[in-house]
């Protein structure tokens, strides 16, 4: 276990209040209330279909894309309810970046993948754009591998490189909160390790919220862990506390591998 215990996180970056989601008649998330601390990694764990991805996708309003999704409750980011009518969706998603389970680079060059966001959001061009792209690729620990082939198709990269490219693409629009939906589940162990190191580094500057199936991963890189089951938040707390002394029977059973 890393520096988890020595760091204290006091500011809340994101907070859900009584957040419920249903798809048609099927409830997916039941009245979840929990904080996510700034500059910390919070892992969401639980069996398949427990609602952890749903919770994550509520935080940048990606759930709205599902036609029969109904959402109630609040999600406060820096004190503002993002489901408020006045919230600008573009501004929200600029602030809250997202990486998906399967790397999804756009079918363009490596450079264009990273440049697209800053160009459209900030109107950057020329040198400034190049600088931002380089910075983002460096931050995603990909620069050294791709600096000589920025014009090559992003689809020629390996899976792990593609995922880091997606992280660079997200960082290039300068978000504050990073949502990661099982970012390593499609990757080999070495790529996974690289991404984990990257997430750890990123958490010094960003608020990271990570969905993972891999308990070891949650233990390795997260400061806080929340355990969900059947759409309910069973318990959450500092990662090592939750893993060593779970308060609820369900959590203990899950951690011992008794279901899921």
């Amino acid at each position: 276990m890393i520096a988890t215990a020595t760091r204290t996180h006091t500011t809340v970056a994101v907070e859900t209040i009584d957040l419920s989601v249903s798809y048609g008649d099927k409830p997916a998330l039941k009245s979840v209330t929990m904080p996510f601390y700034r500059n910390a990694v919070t892992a969401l764990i639980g069996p398949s279909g427990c609602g952890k991805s749903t919770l994550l996708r509520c935080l940048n309003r990606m759930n709205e894309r599902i036609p029969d999704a109904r959402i109630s409750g609040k999600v406060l980011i820096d004190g503002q309810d993002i489901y408020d009518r006045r919230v600008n969706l573009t501004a929200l998603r600029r602030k809250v970046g997202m990486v998906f389970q399967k790397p999804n680079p756009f079918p363009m060059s490596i450079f264009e993948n990273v440049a697209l966001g800053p160009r459209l959001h900030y109107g950057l061009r020329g040198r400034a754009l190049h600088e931002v792209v380089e910075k983002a690729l460096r931050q995603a620990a990909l620069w050294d591998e791709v600096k000589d082939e920025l014009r090559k198709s992003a689809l020629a990269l390996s899976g792990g490189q593609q995922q880091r490219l997606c992280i660079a693409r997200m960082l290039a629009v300068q978000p504050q909160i990073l949502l990661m939906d099982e970012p390593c589940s499609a990757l080999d162990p070495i790529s996974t390790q690289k991404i984990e190191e990257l997430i750890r580094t990123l958490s010094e500057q960003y608020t990271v919220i990570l969905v993972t199936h891999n308990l070891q991963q949650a233990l390795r890189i997260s400061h806080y862990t929340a355990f969900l089951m059947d759409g309910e938040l069973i318990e959450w707390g500092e990662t090592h506390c939750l893993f060593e002394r779970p308060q609820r029977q369900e959590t203990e059973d899950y951690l011992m591998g008794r279901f899921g």
Partner: protein
Amino acid sequence: MRQAEVTWQMGINWDALAARRDRVRQWRNILITRLFGSVGLLTTLLVIGLITTIAYKGAQTLSWEFLTQPPREGMSAGGIGPMIQGSILLMLGTLLLVVPLGVFGGICLAEYGEHSRIMRLMHASVAALAGTPPIVYGLFGLAIFVLKFGLGVSVLAGWFTLTLFSLPVIALTTEAALKAVPQELVDGGLALGLSRWQTLWRIALPYALPNILTGIILSLSRAAGEATPVLFTASIYYSSAQTAFGLESLRQPVANLPYYLAEGYRQPGVVPEHLIWGACLTLIIFVLLLNFSAILVRSRARRRYR
């Protein structure tokens, strides 16, 4: 937890049973493979036979003079220059009109299509239009563009009619191409904060472009070979002058390859048979070139980033 021991013997010779099924399966495989193979071969042979017949009969007529010179001596000699130029003129104008309309129509169908009843109805209508026989377009063009709008039998009326004729197929292929864009890519764009239109323009359209281009070229190559849409709207049969490419000529009728073929064959004795075969071969080459360019465009666009 120990399981009770299970006996599978059951007094049956399992291997013999499976062997019998295997034999049946093998025979069936051979039969089906041969059936499909022979039908496929037949189809291919038919097409090859058709093309070689036309090439054989038309080849001796084909010459630079035949392709560029106007007909002489009351259509009984000379070349088909005006018809080729007319066909190209008709295609160019149609291309300029139909591409924006068809692509925007397809975007409209793909983006608004799923939830509203009106859009589902629109989709069904466009699909029905795509299957409407070309003669219907020809008559519609005659009634509306030639007579109602008073354009007369002219290049303009031909453009509008051919545009209507190619529009549904282009709209449908554009729609299909956009719907084939992986959802992850669209999600990626939206999660990056792009608006719906930015996502469409920057991510979905470039991804769909090869297929859209293919649809455009194939639809145009079909329009290039159809005589009936231009039959009453744009065509002139007897033409001894080169096609003019001026503005005032847009109000004039124009000679073109498919109509030349239809009319030339219908009036035996006027146009000698070798000229008809030559024109036939020219039209086929014209359409094949368009089809090949579709394949080329698609593979080049695919190779770029995929």
